[in-house]
């Protein structure tokens, strides 16, 4: 699997390269600035991009903007965005096109290699990987008149894990129930959120999007 990596801090970039190589990823390019990233994404056609939000030369959210632009040019291009801080605002922008294949994680998550690599693979496969902190921010406020207010606590729990990008099997394992029970919960969630029957993966993304939109 070919990866384009954008990170301006040498130590972290180096660490990520070694970690990804250790898990049999091929590093197509490891760049440090926004323009380089744009060029690499356009020319190298990677299977997944791992991008730091803040990149030189502007040191603003250049990485995020490059990633969003690249996804516009190539819809569904898998992008995993890393940052020192997570904001619901950015998460929403990443998910807004409804195409899936996006991840948004705190840089701290890199410490846990297994989980991090799992997230990269999930994103590359068109799934999502949202940092638990984004989800937590959302949970801190809920009001009953919104569509998500109709969900039962258990369904919310399932949606929360779904938003992190877990599969039904993984959610079942986490909540110690059968996969069939989870499948029932997810179809209830889709029903309550008015998501029509279509490709299951896409509906999962839309459900997460509805979830993130709550904060507005």
């Amino acid at each position, binding site marked *: 699997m070919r990866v384009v990596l954008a990170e301006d801090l040498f130590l972290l970039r180096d660490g990520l390269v070694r970690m990804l190589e250790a898990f049999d990823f091929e590093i197509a390019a490891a760049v440090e600035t926004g323009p380089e990233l744009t060029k690499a994404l356009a020319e190298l056609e990677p299977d997944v991009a791992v991008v730091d939000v803040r990149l030189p030369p502007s*040191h603003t959210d250049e990485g995020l903007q490059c990633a969003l632009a690249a996804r516009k040019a190539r819809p569904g291009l898998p992008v995993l965005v890393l940052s020192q*801080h997570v*904001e619901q*605002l950015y998460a929403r922008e990443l998910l807004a096109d409804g195409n899936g294949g996006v991840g948004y994680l705190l840089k701290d998550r890199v410490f846990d290699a297994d989980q991090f690599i799992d997230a990269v693979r999930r994103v590359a496969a068109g799934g999502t990987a949202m940092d638990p902190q984004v989800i937590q921010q959302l949970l801190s406020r809920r009001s009953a008149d919104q569509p998500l207010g109709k969900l039962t606590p258990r369904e919310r729990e399932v949606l929360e894990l779904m938003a992190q990008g877990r599969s039904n099997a993984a959610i079942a394992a986490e909540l110690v129930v059968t996969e069939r029970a989870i499948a029932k919960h997810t179809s209830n969630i889709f029903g309550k959120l008015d998501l029509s029957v279509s490709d299951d993966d896409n509906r999962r993304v839309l459900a997460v999007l509805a979830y993130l939109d709550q904060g507005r």
Partner: protein
Amino acid sequence: MTRVRASLIAAARGLYLAVATLAGSITLFVLSVVSIALIVIGVGVFTTPTLLTGVRKWADLRRAQAGAWSGVQIPTPYRPFPPDLRRGITGLVERNSLMLKDPATWRDLQWLLVDMTAGCVTVIFAPALPLYMLYGYVLALGVWEPIYDAGGGEWYGFIHVTSQSDANMAALLGTALGVVGLFANPSLVRGHFLLARTLLAPTTSMRERELARRVDRLTETRHDAVDSSAAELRRIERDLHDGAQARLVAMGMDLGTIEAMIEKNPAKAKEMIAKARQNSGEALTELRDLVRGIHPPVLAERGLGDAVKALALRLPVETDADVELFGRAEEPVESAAYFAVSEALTNTIKHAGADRVWVDIHHTDGMLRIAVTDNGKGGASIGAGSGLSGIERRLGTFDGVLAVSSPAGGPTMVTMEIPCELS
């Protein structure tokens, strides 16, 4: 052609000003004088502030026109009202005496007098010149004859029109006057405004007083700025010392222990490694929170609008952020505005008991205007020790102002204004 256009525009403005000076200034002057006279029997107390405010608006309109039409800048001389002006009748009496004590008020009244006389005369020539020229032509076209026949020997300027050749002379004179108007009209209107400036602009002593007030204010806000930045540094130092620094020390100790026991007791070492990693994670979380308190990353990356939106998303209370900014303010202003909003929101959440908050941010006329409104129980005030006075100090450094409207029972509306340009 442009000269003709300019001259005609000046003539139209002159006509408007002539009518305005007569109608508006005379009415306002008479009413004001009567109202001030009636203060003696008490009624005037209620009417005077309203009338004088009207006079100020009238004068401000003329000041604005002077700038827009003739490039004559006339600064406003009025003393600002103190922010803690009371409401109701006591407030009215207070306002009345404050306005009467302001020398600018009396100069306004003098200006009304001058405006209705000399002001009117200067400006009446602008429309009169072209109109008189037309009248000259009308005479020359034959109208002189019936007038003469009716026994009215018409005078056109200094010419007594009694024959066609006289009328032709009148037309010639009219043309000359028209040409004078062509060149003089804009200057006439400008002259009117220059005359107005002598009374509408602040005098030297008024300016000096204003400067003195400004120096006082600057000294005060500078003190506040230095104090608060020192306190801020102290807080950061303490947070680092007790937080991240302590965690790194603990991590270093753990690593030392691990080094010592990794061969003797690998299982225990593994356990300690997990603990060290947890410590590093917590240190990062603390640093992240600290950074957010110094300068929020979204503010650096996206500017005020998105930073406030991101903040709104984090709050436990449903918050709508409506931002209309085309460009970014300077960084220190952005930061001050952000933290002012943040403190206002914190206040709301702590004390108001609201379940809905609205933040509105926009930029008009060189002012960044921010309103934070909630549907809580109200009763907030800018008192000593309240979060609101902290905001006031924060904004003061940038000449920003804070106003709070919070009747008991709510709603509360905190408005802030900071003068700044967007780029």
